[in-house]
């Protein structure tokens, strides 16, 4: 009986965990792709979605090619976080964009002058009280008509 209960609890936890992940993907597809505006920007095929706890950060490493027009969208579904901070860093470790300078906007568009691998580093802020979680997604597209 005890074993059955343990199996049930584990299955339930796994189910909830999978469901949270699936919800995160749904959120990234619905909100992220809308903000990307797929009629103009061709999505690159990556949702980069993950559930993060307060204070955690993730990085996306991706090549960007000169002369193309890119849109980067960074979103979080939690109301407990006032903002999500993202920085774009080049291979010389220089921060070429920080959304803090734009009131923590979710969208940044740019045309690279050089082809290079860039890092999009995203951090959710520390919670004021306790721990909070949020689904975060980083979505990129290129303007195919540019």
């Amino acid at each position, binding site marked *: 009986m005890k074993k059955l209960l343990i199996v049930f609890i584990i299955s339930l936890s796994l189910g909830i965990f999978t469901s949270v992940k699936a919800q995160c993907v749904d959120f990234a597809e619905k909100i992220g792709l809308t903000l990307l505006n797929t009629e103009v920007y061709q999505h*690159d095929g990556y949702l980069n979605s*993950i559930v*993060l706890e307060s204070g955690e950060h*993730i990085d996306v490493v991706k090549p960007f090619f000169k002369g193309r027009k890119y849109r980067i969208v960074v979103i979080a579904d939690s109301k407990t976080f006032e903002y999500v901070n993202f920085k774009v860093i080049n291979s010389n470790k220089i921060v070429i964009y*920080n959304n803090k300078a734009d009131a923590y906007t979710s969208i940044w568009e740019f045309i690279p002058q050089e082809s290079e691998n860039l890092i999009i580093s995203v951090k959710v802020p520390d919670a004021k009280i306790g721990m909070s979680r949020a689904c975060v997604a980083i979505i990129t597209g290129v303007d195919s008509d540019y």
Partner: protein
Amino acid sequence: MRNKKKYILFLAIVLIAFMACNSESNNQVVQNNIDTVDLENNFEQATKIFYNLPSPPDVADLLLANSSVEFNLETLNKVGNIDLYESSAKQALNLGIYSTDFSFASLSGQDQIAINYLANSKKLAKKLGIVGVLGQDTIQWLARNFENKDSLMGIITLVYRRSEAYFNDNGKGDLALLMAIGGWTEGLFIATQLAEKMEFSVDIMDKIAEQRLSMDIILQIIESNLKEPNIIIYRDGFKKLNEKYLTYNKMLSDDLKDGGEISELTIAEFRSLAELVQGLRNQFTN
């Protein structure tokens, strides 16, 4: 006297305003200079690092855009090869490969061929447990709307996106990486074959050189997945390719300095690089 005072006051205001602007722009410069990140530390502390290689439609667009050369279908992986892929690793690699083949075929206006590749991508996705990635109605819709290339790219992006998300959410991150590596390698393989046909035009040679950026990412993927046997087996092949790439890119850059032409030596180096790409691609498809 009063005018003189006003004049001095005016000058002082202008001077202060100028200094303030100057100081602000200096601060901006200083801030830009010091706004750096300790990348090693950053990566170490990251909860997760996502590596985004160019996806199949992206790699086709990058390498084939504005190219008027006639497409050689023999270059693509054979549709009938699908039955060879029994392990999930091979299936994931070839899901990426067939998706890239679809992208190249559809960009080249080879509609029926492209549909066959899409059907193969769907079959492999199903074998890998990815359900509902593409309904039969979507394929039928495609057959009727083939002139809309943007929609086609949207469809293959959807297949890629759903597969990638499925792998990552089901503890199969290695398969997501293999799909990306397979798709990118196929794109590079097709481009190297096209370069021969395009008589080594600067445009295609330069586009291929730019793809070395993705090599850096593949090497990072391999180094951060040393415990994944399905990935580690390609380590030596990609290391060799990277070394060849470095030499080729240097030679090409030297040739093209001051508007020069591509030398025979660089072409020979390119052919040697193309052989390595073909070797890796054959490892994936056979």
